[in-house]
Every structure is written in C-alpha cells, then in structure tokens.
C-alpha cells in the first residue's frame, strides 16, 4: 500500500526519532515499562506504515460488502439501517413472561428474547430435586408445550421473531415453539427467530451441559438440518464467544475457540451430506465487547475476515452470504463492577461504541446494575439510550468502518488474526475442537487467563476504577434483593402434575419409545421430539430418554 521510498524514509526518520525519545524518557519516563492490551498483546509506542507494509488493500481489506468482508458484510452498513438494539430479558413463570412480552410488543419491539431458568437450561422439570429454589429465577420455566402456549398466548407468532437462549435442550424448546405456533395456525415456514444451540461452548465455558460432546453436536446439527428443510426463516445456531470471554478468555482465545466451534459444526453438517451454501447463510455468531476499545474493534474485524476465509477456502462456499459473519454483541458482564455502579454506564458506552465500530448486526447493552441483579427499569432504559446516543448523536454510523487504515487498528487486526490462527491450528492438530475439549485444552487455557487476570488486579498491575484504585472508602456495597415469588415454583409444579395426569400417558410412552429408537438408529430426532411435545411429554422426560441413549457428560478435573 506504500511506496518503497516512503517506507525507507519513515524507517530512517524513526531511528532518529527513537533517539529523541530516549532523551525525553530520561527526563520524563513512561508510565509503564511495557504496555499491553487487556489480552496481553504488547503495544508499541507508535505505529506507522511500516507496521502494515505488507498489506494488500484489496486482498486484506476490500470494500464493504466484499470479500474478505473485513470492513463489513454490507455495502452501506449503518447508513442503510442501524444495528438491531436487542435487549435480553424475562423471568418468572410463563404468565409473567407473557405479560412482559405483550408490554414490549405494545411499545414497538418485534424482536423478542427468551431467557430460561436454570432447570430448563439443564433440561430438568420444575419438580426435579435439583430445581428447588431455582424455578423461574434467572428466566422463564418451561416444562411442557402448555408453558410455551401460555407464553405466546395472544401473540401472533408469525409477526414476531424470538431469540431463545437454550443449548443442550434446544431441540425440545424449538419443537415446543413450532408446536405452539401450529396451534395458532402458523406453519413452521412462517416463524422466525434464533436458537442459541451452541453446545460446544457449554463444555468450554458456560458449563450448562447435559450430553457428551459428540451427541450434543449431533443434536445441534439435527436442528440445522431440520430448519434448513422445514423452518427456513429460523437461525438454527448462534455460535457464541460471549460466554467463553466471560469465563476469563482473552480476546484472541474468544475468537479462536468460537471459530473452532463453528468449524466443527460446519464440518459435521457437511459430513451429513448438507450443501454448505444451503445452511451456512443462516449461521450466526455472538461475541462480547470488552473494555479494551481498539482490541475489541480489531477482534471484530479479524473475525469477519477469518470466517470468510474459512468458509471460502476450507469449505468451498460459493455464495457470499455463506461467507458472512453475522454477529450479535453484548457488552461485557465481567467488566462491570459492583462498586460505584454508575461507572458502569461509562464502561457500557465505550464497549457499545467498540461493537458499533466493529460492525455488529445487533447489540445488547448491559445495565449498570446487571453485575449482580436483574436490572431495574431505569437501568435498562439508560442502557438502551446509550445505544441510541451512539446511533443518532455521535455520527460514528455515518461512514462504513471509519477506523480502517489506522496503523494501530490494522496492525492489531492482523496480530489478533495471526494469534487466533495459531490456536486454531493447534486445535486442528489435536483432531478438532471435540478432541481438544476432551483433553481439557480450551478449558485450561481459559482458567489460566482468568487466574492471571485476577492476579494482575490484586497486584495492582491492572487498574479497575472503584475496585483497586479510586475506591470510595465509605462505600457500602448494596446489592438489591432479587425477589422471586416462591408461588411460581409451586404453581409450575402443580401445573406439571396436572398435565401429567390429564394427558394420554400411553401415547406419551409410545412417542418417547419411538424417540429412543430413532436416537439409537442415529436418525434426526427433531420430528420425534416434535411428536412427543405435541402429546405433552415434558422437557425432563424427553431429555431423560435422550440421556439413556447418549449418556451424560461428566466434568473433567481441571482448574
């Protein structure tokens, strides 16, 4: 991109300049001996064309909407349409959630988002002994199709799209969603939304796993295959780095492990005989936006370029859409502090700005009190307003990828990509992500990073405002009470009992037996699960049937 003479001139001048710097730093030394990004990448004093001298504009950057999509997947990006401002919410029983969704719809939201409680996430019914105290706490409880019917009662399911944050039991919840829509007279071709359905990151980070890796991935592919054929508007999977990052990974690890997960899913789908250009356009991603501003922007740009290369060069995708990395971003939960919570508003704003400058498709901004509770209404509103200020006031959305060409940002984009490839190569040489997970590789890498970070904070090498510096001595930490009505658990268990009594139990047994046989034969289980939920088989019953065939995952011994 630069003429040789220009580069030589800079190089010569830089040598002179270094001498000057040596003199000056003798008088005023720099703040640190070595500067590093949040993820530990060493950062130089200044970046120049020399740092990106090998770049080829068309090869490495291209124009927006063109391969390798470094600058964005669309030609006009936010000049056409802002990112989707999507706020994840909901808890309680199906009735409370139904009221909440209706309220949101009345206020113009069409993108709904369902969070499930821990028993549901683990595929347990509300009356399971381990569910006690957790029913409806961190999301809505769903045991049977009946609960899904209540959640969407009076909501036209062909008019809304729904995000469901569910992984190992995703087949069951999707089946319930399809069945509930059919009861409204809405065919599967008319429903839209997303199932997170990313089982691998559960082993790596989130740890809400049920099945061992192979069957877990098999189920995820079942959804991809089923949706490609029958639910064309559904995004079957959201390959998630967010949880990996939150568990303590660096930006490079987040990127590398997420892509490695994505590679696994694509490989398996192709192995099943699916055409890459048929399913790839519906794959989507989910990343975190942490507090190191430029590093995050570089990460998003590197992610797009890497995925495009992977899809085109590894998997022979032909359609540009198959090479698009569409991603949702959520600002970092772990960067929020319980101390001086108002400071979190500032953190969220900076992180959200990074997501926008990184070219995200949708964005969730955390609320300032989200570090420790379900957010208050006021806090949620400020979080949403933060996005609106960025969109409407700052002007950053007026041009596409405004930071392209910054010597630092381009260098950092390359650096992150280079480091991420190293991880991906290593995982590939282990035999892929599933094998790496079995060896505990990504888990150990993340635990190491998390511990290193904690030590740096405790040794004062990393400053967190309000926590280990600028502390308000007399501040008393006030974590507000999360009120969960114990009636919800009781009501949920009563309803479950009633349904189990009233439904046709011989039919339930028959359909579960059919499901078991299909699972044993290795068939796509989606149609069988759909049949089972329609006769009100419970989430727990279906999951237990699958556990009998697939077994259960046990955590490896890792710290």
């Amino acid at each position: 991109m630069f003429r040789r003479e220009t580069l030589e001139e800079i190089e010569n001048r830089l040598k002179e300049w270094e001498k000057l710097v040596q003199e000056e730093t003798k008088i005023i030394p720099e703040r640190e001996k070595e500067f590093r990004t949040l993820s530990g990448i060493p950062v130089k004093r200044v970046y120049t064309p020399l740092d990106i001298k090998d770049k080829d504009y068309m090869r490495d950057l291209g124009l927006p909407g063109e391969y390798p999509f470094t600058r964005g997947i669309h030609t006009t990006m936010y000049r056409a349409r802002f990112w989707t401002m999507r706020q994840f919410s909901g808890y309680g029983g199906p009735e409370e959630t139904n009221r909440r969704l209706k309220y949101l719809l009345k206020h113009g939201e069409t993108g709904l988002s369902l969070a499930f409680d821990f028993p549901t996430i683990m595929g347990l019914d509300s009356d399971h002994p381990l569910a006690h105290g957790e029913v409806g706490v961190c999301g809505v409880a769903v045991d049977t199709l009946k609960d899904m019917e209540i959640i969407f009662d009076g909501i036209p399911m062909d008019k809304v799209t729904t995000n469901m944050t569910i992984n190992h039991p995703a087949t069951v919840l999707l089946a319930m969603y399809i069945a509930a829509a059919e009861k409204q007279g809405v065919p599967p071709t008319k429903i839209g939304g997303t199932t997170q359905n990313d089982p691998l990151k559960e082993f790596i980070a989130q740890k809400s796993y049920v099945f061992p890796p192979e069957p877990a991935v098999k189920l995820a592919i079942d959804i991809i295959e089923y949706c490609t054929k029958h639910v064309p508007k559904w995004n079957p999977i959201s390959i998630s780095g967010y949880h990996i990052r939150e568990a303590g990974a660096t930006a490079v690890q987040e990127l590398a492990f997420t892509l490695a997960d994505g590679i696994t899913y694509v490989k398996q789908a192709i192995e099943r005989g699916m055409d890459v250009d048929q399913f790839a356009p519906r794959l989507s991603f989910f990343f975190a936006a942490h507090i190191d501003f430029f590093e995050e922007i570089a990460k998003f740009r590197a992610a797009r370029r890497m995925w495009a290369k992977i899809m085109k060069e590894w998997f022979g995708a032909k359609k540009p859409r198959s090479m698009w990395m569409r991603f949702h971003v959520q600002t970092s939960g772990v960067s929020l502090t319980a101390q001086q919570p108002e400071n979190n508003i500032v953190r969220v704003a900076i992180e959200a700005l990074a997501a926008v400058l990184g070219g995200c498709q949708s964005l969730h901004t955390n609320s300032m009190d989200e570090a420790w509770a379900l957010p208050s209404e006021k806090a949620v509103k400020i979080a949403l307003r933060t996005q609106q200020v960025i969109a409407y006031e700052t002007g950053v959305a007026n041009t596409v990828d405004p930071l392209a060409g910054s010597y630092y940002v381009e260098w950092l984009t390359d650096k992150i990509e280079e480091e991420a490839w190293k991880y991906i190569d290593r995982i590939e040489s282990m035999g892929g992500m599933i094998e790496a997970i079995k060896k505990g590789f990504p888990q150990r890498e993340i635990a190491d990073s998390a511990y290193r970070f904690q030590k740096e904070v405790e040794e004062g090498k990393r400053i967190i405002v309000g926590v280990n510096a600028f502390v308000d001595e007399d501040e008393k930490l006030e974590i507000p009470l999360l009120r969960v009505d114990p009636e919800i658990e009781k009501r949920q268990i009563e309803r479950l009992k009633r349904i189990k009594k009233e439904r046709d139990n011989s039919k339930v047994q028959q359909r579960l037996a059919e499901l078991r046989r299909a699972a044993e034969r290795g068939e796509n289980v989606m149609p069988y699960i759909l049949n089972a939920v329609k006769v009100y088989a419970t989430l727990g019953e279906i999951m237990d049937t699958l556990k009998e065939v697939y077994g259960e995952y046990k955590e490896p011994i890792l710290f």
Partner: protein
Amino acid sequence: MAEGDIEFVERIAEGVLRGDVRSIARAISIVENEPRLAPLLISKIFPYTGRAHIVGVTGPPGSGKSSLIAKLAKIWRKDGKKIGIIAVDPTSPFTGGALLGDRIRMQELTGDKDVYIRSMASRGSLDGLSRATRDAIKILDAAGKDIIIVETVGAGQAEVGIVKVAHTVLVVLCPGLGDEIQFLKAGIMEIGDIFVVNKADIGDADRVVLEIENILEMASEFLPQKPAWAPLVIKTSVITNEGIEKLVRSIEEHYAYIRGTSEGEFVRDKIIEELVDIIGENVREYARHLITKDSMCNEILERVLKKDIDPYTAARKILAEMLKRREF
C-alpha cells in the same frame, strides 16, 4: 503427651473400629498433621488391620483413573463390599498447597454410606506415598473396609511407592496420551499386575494393548524364570462399560492368587519396608537435628564446608556420634 490427647486419640480409635465416618476422617487428619499423636493412634488400631484387599491404581494424568475407580467401586458395592478410596494428588513444591479434584469424577459415589473417599496431598513424599497415606490405609482397613483403592498420579518414579502397600497394582493408560510409549519405558512396566487400557471408546485402544503386550513380552525374556502371575492387559471404557466387569473379576483373581501363594511373604516384605522407612525417617530427622543444632556435629559440617574433610568421612563421624548418644 497430655491426658486429654490420649483420651482424644482413644475416642477416635474406638470410632474408627466402629466404622464411624467422622472418626475415620479425624483419624486420617491426625496421621497427616500430628506426628505426636499418630503412633498412639496406630498402636490402637494396628491389631485390627490386615483384612482388606488393597488395590493400587496409578497412571498418567488424564488416563481416567478416577472415573474407572468409581465404576469399580459401584460393582463392588453391588457385591456388598465396603469401599475406601484414597486419592493422592501432588503438593505444589512452590506454595505447599494442593488442588485435589479427583472427587469430581466420583460424584456418583457420594451419599453411599459404605463408600469413604479421602483426597490427600502428597506433601513432598518421594515415591508418591507418604507415611500418612500408609497410615490412612491402616485406618480404613481397621474401620472394616473390604477393599481399599489407592489412586496415585504421576509418571516415572512417583508411583512406585504403591507397590509397597498394594496387593494388586493397576496401571491405567489410554489412547491418545501422545507420549505413552515414553511413559511405558519409564519403569512403570515392572509394577503392574494388571494393565488397563482405558477409554477404549475413543482412539486406537487396540494399538496401545499391542504395545503394552510387546513391552511385557520383551521384559519377560530377560527374567530368569517366568513369573507365576503374568500381567494381564484389559481394555475398558467407562462410557460403554466394556471390560469393567472383567477387570473387577481379574482384580479379585489376582488377590486370590496372592493369598494362595505369597501373601505371607508380601506382608512380611511390606512390614520390612515400613520398618526401614520409619527407622530411616527417624534417623534422618535426628541427623538433621544434630548437624544443625549440636555444636560438635556442626563443627564437622563447617570442616566439610572448608573442604577440610570429605562428606563420607564426615558422615561416618556423625553416625558414630549418633550411635554413641543413643538418643533416638
């Protein structure tokens, strides 16, 4: 030793003999932490030891030892056997702390009153088994456990200590460890009565079986006479349960074989080893005490430092001094 101490130890010893879980747990803490009280405790329970079948399980990290032990324990529980498990993990040489995580893989056993699991840190023992571990085995034995499983981790030298205490030693390997061959060469091949190729559900377990058999065969060629018990190689999987039942029965067979042939010798050898260890430990402690605290011995040390005399001569002088004083 104070009156209260004696009473306390006696109470704990009685509890151990009753099989009381808290007493067993406390007793093990005593042998780990209170060298003053441990001899008294052991003297109270020693007559009741010698009834349990002690099974050592060793092998490199990641070979699935803990999950395998959980499986074995489950089968033995069905046979009505009472089980004790001691899982030894290394102590960090830098901090003296330890992370003990083997229980994670044995969660399914928690809640069974007749299974007792104890995690122990190696605390700097050279052969992977500290004196405390050996005493813990005695405690579980006296508490009426029928089978005591001792899990040690490591490669090379660290696990040979297991041979000194276990009737039956399992060496657990698995496919895909990468450097299993090196591991096999590291001297562990001599200690196994049964070689387990675990995780037969993944990777090329048959190849590992073949490798082990080859090495065993080569080793046996150098032996003056064929041993009566030829080491077995068994493939297992805790996912599919392949080989688990067979392994259990083989372990029992080996025990029957030991009892039928050489148990007297085994017990004798074990006690000789233990006596030598205890005496050695006492002598070492006393030697260290004299060299660092006693003025005369200290002088000898200084002379070595000045290269006046050599270490062998110095050691002879100090040993003579130790024998003269007869203080240990």
